[in-house]
């Protein structure tokens, strides 16, 4: 009941001994994620929480534990290197939580991972959760419940707000994916929509966008042509002043492309249900799911 992560996930945490990494590694273990290894250069040979082996490199971790998914909690200046290391170790799915990665670093990471067939989620994202199976990242497990709704979002806490409404009204989730708010991210809306469309357990899709760029418009165009499942969508930043950065590097409006209104217009043209408020997700889903 999922895309990309689930019961079969064998997770390695890069930066497991750091403040953020150790906190979230514990949370992921408590949720029931199969955390098989940690990596911190120089701390190989230790054991995390008395059961997870720590290695110096991702390659060593993969050789010893057959890890097949990596999550990254290293400082921004080391994030690009951590992604490339995971890719070279043969990890097919890499989730980078780190916020503040220089964008020029990402211009070099993208062709590197493309050549190695790696799916990268993020950076600057909350990660993914397949409720009841696996959590990779920082989305609070307590607000999620298994079910038929696939959710994809550019933001963090706004995702939690929408999931909270879903769970509270009986709409469980197949997988929730936070793709991140940076200008260059490894996985875009269309990648996630394609996966949800092919996933038999996903019956409806919720898409949470933000001002800035044209990713939502391109997603709407894709939905119109290729997605048969019902989609509902929200765009944050309807009241944002033009040309101002609102926290996420992604949320900057420049030029004519990128306002919330333009994105809503594209949604409407593609037959996407319009959420003017986060809570609207409930009524919209009631109308499309029995």
């Amino acid at each position, binding site marked *: 009941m999922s895309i990309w992560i689930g019961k079969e996930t064998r997770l390695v945490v890069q930066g497991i001994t750091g403040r953020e990494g150790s906190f979230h590694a514990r949370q992921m273990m408590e949720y029931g994620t199969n955390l098989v290894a940690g990596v911190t250069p120089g701390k190989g040979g230790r054991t995390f929480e008395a059961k997870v082996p720590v290695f110096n490199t991702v390659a060593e971790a993969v050789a010893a534990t057959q890890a097949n998914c990596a999550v990254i909690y290293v400082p921004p200046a080391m994030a690009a290197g951590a992604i490339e290391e995971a890719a070279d170790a043969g990890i097919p799915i890499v989730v980078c939580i780190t916020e503040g990665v220089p964008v020029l670093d990402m211009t070099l990471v993208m062709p590197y991972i493309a050549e190695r067939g790696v799916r990268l989620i993020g950076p600057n994202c909350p990660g993914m959760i397949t409720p009841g199976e696996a959590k990779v990242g920082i989305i*609070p497990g307590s607000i999620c419940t298994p079910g038929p709704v696939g959710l994809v979002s550019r933001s963090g806490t706004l995702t939690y707000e929408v999931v909270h409404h879903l769970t509270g009204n009986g709409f469980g989730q197949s997988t929730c994916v936070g793709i991140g708010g940076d200008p260059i991210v490894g996985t875009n809306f269309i990648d996630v929509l394609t996966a949800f469309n092919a996933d038999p357990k996903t019956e409806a899709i919720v898409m949470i966008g933000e001002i800035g760029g044209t990713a939502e418009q391109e997603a709407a165009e894709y939905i119109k042509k290729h997605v048969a499942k019902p989609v509902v969508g929200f765009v944050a930043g309807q009241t944002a002043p033009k040309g101002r950065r609102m*926290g996420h590097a992604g949320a900057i409006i420049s030029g*004519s492309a990128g306002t*919330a209104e333009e994105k809503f217009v594209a949604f409407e043209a593609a037959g996407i249900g319009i959420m003017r408020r986060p809570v609207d997700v409930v009524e919209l889903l009631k109308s499309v799911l029995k």
Partner: protein
Amino acid sequence: MNLHEYQARDLLKAAGIPLSDGDVAVTPTEAEAIARRVGGTVVVKAQVHVGGRGKAGGVKLARNPAEAAEYASQILGMTIKGLVVNKVLVVPAAEIATESYVGLILDRATQKPVFMVSDAGGVDIEEVAAKTPEKITRLAVDPRYGLLPHQALKLALALYRDWDQARAAMKIMHQLYTVFMTNGCSLAEINPLVTTPDGKVLALDAKIIIDDNELDRRPDLAVLRDESAEEPSEVTARRANLTFIKLDGNVGCVVNGAGLAMATMDLVKYYGGEPANFLDIGGSSNPEKVVNALKIITADTSVKVILFNIFGGITRTDDVAQGIVTATQQFKVKVPIVIRLTGTNEKEAFRILESVGMTVLNDMDAAVSQAVALAKAAA
């Protein structure tokens, strides 16, 4: 981070790009001396991080050094869109034969640096893009290989048919690309790139935006930040590790996370109110951040109500509650506070706030509509 025009010019000059003479001045006397040194008619330009400087009277043509001093004294200290002008750039008024636009931006769609050049320069490039997109040549550069010679030639030929000018432009394309990559830019722009009547190619005005994420590892770039040219409340917020943007409304907002903060502002508007600010306290939640956030918001006298919207994930809502209690004990908050908290440790958060007589909601719509009603009643 936006650079001033004079700072952008310095980076271009260091890379070898031909620029008009001129320098930056902080006093009328300095402006006069620069005008005397460069000779002839000069332009005195306010160095401030907003568009529309000319319309606001921040750009003046001075025929001699005395006039340059006079205009500098008018412009220095003036306020343009709320920002005080502390510096002026004094440059010779170039004689112009043609004007072009050369820009290099980090493009989300191609995930590469992309050149945009147009021989319809000197005007608003966004207008050109909207009305006559065929006049803009775009070229994505693969950062693994850099700008290739034939690519630079294509860009140069899009601007000039004269071979000497095209060769000069080719060199400038390479130099601008180097500036972009070595300074962690998200935008580097020459507008206009001009030719003079005697055929020289020259950069007249420059704009550079540096990716904020570069500043931690590049102290040499971080020092270019001119805090005196920014909204003071935004500077205070950044020092407290908060993201704050002042807006025109009267509902002060304190939210964790940028997306939820924008959605909260949108909801304020939905219920008929106007947000006074964007404020993201970020993921970690030490009570001190909340105290700083409240200090910044209460300093704005147009704020009639303060709305907290906290969804606890990594953020512990009891930390936020403790911050609210600490702040209200440290200084008197004169406007009503509406608090919405849900998520991690919310029971403890409710207990903390209710023990000091505050009411707490756990629904976003209920909290926003209550805040808007209070703001309207107070206005």
